[in-house]
């Protein structure tokens, strides 16, 4: 059976990494039709597993407004057994709306496809993994991107234009405040350096950023660091922030609350730098360094 997958679009272009991961997960279920809204579809057409790309550049779909996107997806839904998206803030916003319009349950943040009806998803901040079987005729799914490999770029799907009813008029875009950065994207970076409350201030977060830049890494933060204004909200890693699984995760001045671990404990190698040897972060760290971060992090940056 066929799958309709909503491509992730950011800043007027397809976000290839998140999309490629959702495509590889979707390809386990059938032929993938990729829906690209508000961007060109040529790059995404190369993703392995994609048999067709539907593109609309109608301004109504340009900013990820859930009401317009959900109506468009529902208008296309007839041909598909599965409707999917990466579990980005856009996917999380739009797909539950699609599911309710189709009178089916939604499966969010799926980490594994068992078969066409059966999926695994984490619950309780990842402290339990639930396997669920859907009885609904159509399955609406968001995939946690950190657990799927990105689809390769070996395909060459046909790109077609599609159109929907346009603007529902229920909501309107006002503005985006997106920080420009030369650093790799947090959810796709090979190395992530994160700072917590222990960093102490926005100014001192520069220590974390310097180490990240030395390593070509992305920068993450705990909720406490974001709440305290040391770091922007889009850096938050955790149960209710971003989920990352890089090759190397370096946690500095982070205690290791379950809500934080939920967002990083699937990293390949975890390093923790914390002055409290009892900090729970050491229970998941491959390499723990009990030290003052103000001394250890600059030293690490210098010696690398």
């Amino acid at each position, binding site marked *: 059976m066929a799958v309709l997958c909503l491509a992730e679009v950011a*800043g007027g272009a397809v976000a290839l990494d998140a999309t490629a991961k959702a495509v590889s997960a979707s390809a386990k279920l059938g032929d993938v039709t990729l829906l690209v809204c508000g961007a060109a579809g040529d790059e995404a057409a190369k993703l392995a597993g994609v048999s067709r790309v539907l593109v609309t550049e109608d301004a109504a779909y340009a900013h990820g*407004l*859930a*009401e317009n996107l959900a109506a468009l997806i529902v208008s296309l839904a007839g041909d598909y057994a599965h409707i999917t998206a990466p579990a980005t*803030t*856009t996917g*999380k*916003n739009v*797909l*539950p709306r*699609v*599911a*309710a319009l189709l009178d089916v*349950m*939604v499966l*969010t*943040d799926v980490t594994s496809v068992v078969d066409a009806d*059966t999926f695994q998803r984490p*619950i*309780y*901040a990842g402290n*339990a*993994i*639930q*396997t*669920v*079987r859907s*009885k*609904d005729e159509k399955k609406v799914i968001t995939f946690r991107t950190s657990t799927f490999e990105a689809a390769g770029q070996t395909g060459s799907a046909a790109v077609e234009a599609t159109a929907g009813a346009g603007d529902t008029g*229920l*909501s*309107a875009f*006002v*503005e*985006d*405040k*997106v920080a420009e950065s030369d650093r790799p994207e947090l*959810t796709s970076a090979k*190395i992530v350096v994160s700072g917590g409350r222990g960093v102490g201030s926005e100014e001192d977060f520069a220590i974390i950023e310097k180490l990240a830049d030395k390593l070509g890494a992305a920068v993450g933060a705990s909720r406490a660091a*974001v*709440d305290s204004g040391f770091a*922007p*909200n*889009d850096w938050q890693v955790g*149960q*209710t922030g971003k989920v990352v699984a890089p090759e*190397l995760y370096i946690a500095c001045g982070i205690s290791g609350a*379950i809500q934080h671990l939920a967002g990083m*404990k699937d990293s390949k*190698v*975890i*390093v923790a730098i914390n002055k409290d040897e009892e900090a729970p972060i050491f229970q*998941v760290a*491959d*390499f*723990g*360094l*009990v030290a003052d971060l103000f001394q250890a992090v600059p030293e*690490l940056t210098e010696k*690398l």
Partner: protein
Amino acid sequence: MKVLVPVKRVIDYNVKVRVKGDGTGVDLANVKMSMNPFDEIAVEEAIRLKEAGVASEVVVVSIGEKKAVDTLRNALAMGADRGILVTEDQGVEIEPLAVAKILAKVVAEEAPELVILGKQAIDNDMNATGQMLAALLGWGQATFASEVLISEGKAVVTREVDGGLQTISVGLPAIVTTDLRLNEPRYASLPNIMKAKKKPLDEKTAADYGVDTTPRLTVVKTEEPAAREAGIKVGSVDELIAKLKEGGLV
């Protein structure tokens, strides 16, 4: 303007959850239960709208076991005006789709202009009910809100999104779901906890609303995640660098 706030009773966020040995779920016996933290933020936001003269009444609703009455009393003690308890004792978790269907009926009766939900219940981690309710009502939705401004029949909402912040405007009536930075919820004072006991609280059942709550998802099993192997402590930055180099990580 009336504001409706759905609040869920969940395992307290500080409790370390244990998966039952037989794979049927997590152990909820004798664990501390609390209001879902995102719902505390939702209640706080509604109360602030009332204090600012924007909202006229704050109604809280909870769906679940009878014990969810504690969660409602807690919201009333924070400052909500009235509660609705919808009991449904079927022994399994009521799914977001069924919760949204019940809430849609409550909305039809109460006619609020704004419904503020949490973005996510920290037990099932679904992040779905608000979006589903918006769909069923045909309303606009502003999810993951870090700022809400109500004026001239619309809500201008700043949302926490992957790339940073996005501001949208939704016409009322609308659905808002809360993110962590929207506000810091107040604690209920002792006098307010006493007063809350006298605030009106209606009891209903899912059947009263004619909603079928049969789950669409069957739980096959619930397991512990794979545990990480124990790591080591390193004595110095030099030793750490040596280990990282050994692993080809830097």
